[in-house]
């Protein structure tokens, strides 16, 4: 089997990740045998916890790079980004795999996960979300399939997929726009529960724009990290282009957030409450600091500082999803004495899913032609 010898499979990091995955597998078996109450600290006031906050909301936001880069290359014909279209789509696929698998074990009756496909409920946001997960995961698998066909030497199948790539990518752009925003729309129904710091009729737009920031940061981060693994110089034109994209999305996001904050009363962000502090932290780390840094040209052109900004954005947007799903509802939910902090098993499963994404991406990078342009003829 041909593979990239630059990527060493059995590094200590990989072994640790595999160990976490194994532990996560055991916890999932325990959860299936004994139920959610035994494995998690979820309760009647906190029906959703860490798995929804990070694995589902975070995993999907992280996947936004896939539709953006695919759209840029195939719809806008920005050929500059062609070298990163495969890793971006693969990253999206792992993001969605993470979300879909987490949902499987988070719902109470996993073997009924297909019910939404046949029991249509067009008034339910959750139904809209479920259908999008199914359709878009399939789309991502199709978009990634040429790499597999290439490996299997199935040239005919590969050509067929490339022949219909433009409509598939367009379909993917459509599904992603709807799916990213519909995850924000999930919370529209809880005006009396979610803190006004986050509750807004603009939640769908806010989720979409912040997913653009996070998706581009993920792609940028991967481009830098994999160039290190492959020992080649990353294309600075691509990276500064991505940085510009992050900057534009972040400025739009900050503007929307400011409008929302001014409408609701700016004082609520500075009242020293737990929610206010979480809000400030999220905005400072994920939006304001990245904007300030990215406005500096020397930052946009330095690998290490781009990497740092990418990390800030990713952390900030994950924090946003946790704020919407947990911290923003905390005060109202905990009023009756039930509180929530994830169990160690919830942490292990979340870490296991993240480990799976990293190891999975690494295996694909080793055995598939993830960067055909830069590798030449391996």
């Amino acid at each position, binding site marked *: 089997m041909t593979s990239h010898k630059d990527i060493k499979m059995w590094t200590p990091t990989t072994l640790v990740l595999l160990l976490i995955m194994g532990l996560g597998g055991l916890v999932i078996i325990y959860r299936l045998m004994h139920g959610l109450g035994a494995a998690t600290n979820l309760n009647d006031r906190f029906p959703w916890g860490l798995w929804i906050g990070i694995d589902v909301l975070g995993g999907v936001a992280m996947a936004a790079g896939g539709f953006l880069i695919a759209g840029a290359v195939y719809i806008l014909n920005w050929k500059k980004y062609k070298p990163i279209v495969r890793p971006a789509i693969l990253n999206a696929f792992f993001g969605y795999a993470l979300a879909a698998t987490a949902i499987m074990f988070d719902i*109470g009756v996993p073997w009924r996960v297909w019910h939404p496909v046949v029991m249509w409920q067009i008034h*339910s946001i959750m139904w809209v*979300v479920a259908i999008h997960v199914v359709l878009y995961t399939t789309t991502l698998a199709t978009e990634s399939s040429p790499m597999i066909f290439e490996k299997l030497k199935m040239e005919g199948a590969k050509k067929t997929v490339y022949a219909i790539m433009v409509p598939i990518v367009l379909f993917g752009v459509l599904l992603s726009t709807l799916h990213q925003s519909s995850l924000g729309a999930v919370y529209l129904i809880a005006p009396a529960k979610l803190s006004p710091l986050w509750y807004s009729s603009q939640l769908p737009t806010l989720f979409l724009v912040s997913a653009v920031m996070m998706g581009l940061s993920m792609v940028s981060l991967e481009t830098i990290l994999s160039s290190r693994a492959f020992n080649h110089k990353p294309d600075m034109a691509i990276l500064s282009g991505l940085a510009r994209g992050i900057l534009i999305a972040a400025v739009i996001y900050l503007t929307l957030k400011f409008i929302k904050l001014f409408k609701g009363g700016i004082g609520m962000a500075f009242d020293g409450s737990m929610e206010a502090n979480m809000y400030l932290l999220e905005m400072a780390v994920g939006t304001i600091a990245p904007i300030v840094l990215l406005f500096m040209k020397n930052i946009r052109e330095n690998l290490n500082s781009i990497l740092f900004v990418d990390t800030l954005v990713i952390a900030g947007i994950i924090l946003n999803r946790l704020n919407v799903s947990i911290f923003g509802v905390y005060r109202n939910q905990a009023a009756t004495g039930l509180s929530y902090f994830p169990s160690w098993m919830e942490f292990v499963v979340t870490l296991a899913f993240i480990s799976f994404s990293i190891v999975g991406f690494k295996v694909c990078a080793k055995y598939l032609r993830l960067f055909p342009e830069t590798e030449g003829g391996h």
Partner: protein
Amino acid sequence: MAKGVLVDLTKCIGCRGCQISCKGWNEMSAQKTVMAGDLTNPPRLNAHCYTHIRFQEDEKEGGPVWSFVKDQCFHCKNPACASACPVGALKKTEKGPVTYTFERCIGCRYCMLACPFYIPKYEWEKVVPWIRKCTFCSERIAADLVPACIKTCPTGTMIFGELDDMLKEGRDRITANPGKYVNHIYGEKEAGGTSWMYLSAVPFEWLGFNTRIPAKELPDLTWAYIAKIPAVIGVVLVAGAATWAITRRNQNMDKEE
């Protein structure tokens, strides 16, 4: 037609007969409980307890006032939980009850997030868990019987009948007894209106009722988004296809040059 209940909290004596009859009719097992500092028992509704009496102590005109509050599903006219459900496990029935079909349920628990009254509960301890909540005794109503808790109440705290009649009765009682009730029928407007409506002598926020619930049907909030989806599909597909056509043409022209 849709049925409703008027709960006059000034009449409740806190005997908890309703709690017992609810357990009996729904064949739910007893549970070991602990003292939680007041007489409310169990302290919160849960998957094995669809209704309870909350004992609330407040002050009015310098003296202590005891209030007894009956908690159960409000059976909204247009319930957030039913609109949230991705598989139609929760449904608003014509006669008023919001009912649950386990065979459809996938256990996503979005109903629990959507409900402004924190009513749907989950069987956390079970391997195959159900969502549990007050059924408004839908089988009894279908058989022209009064719901179990109302049937048991010795003081007539709750009256059961046509929803519109119950609302009218509530208004009449407020008008006929100046000063006795606060001028608010809880459930008339909350979340767009509910089948269970309350009269109280003290402000509802004292009694732990959520008074921040908007006076509109909550499913409209998400429908505002869903209704736009067809337009988004059209715009993205047309704009995307047009962009692709233009950028490809530009590129071909570049090549010819």
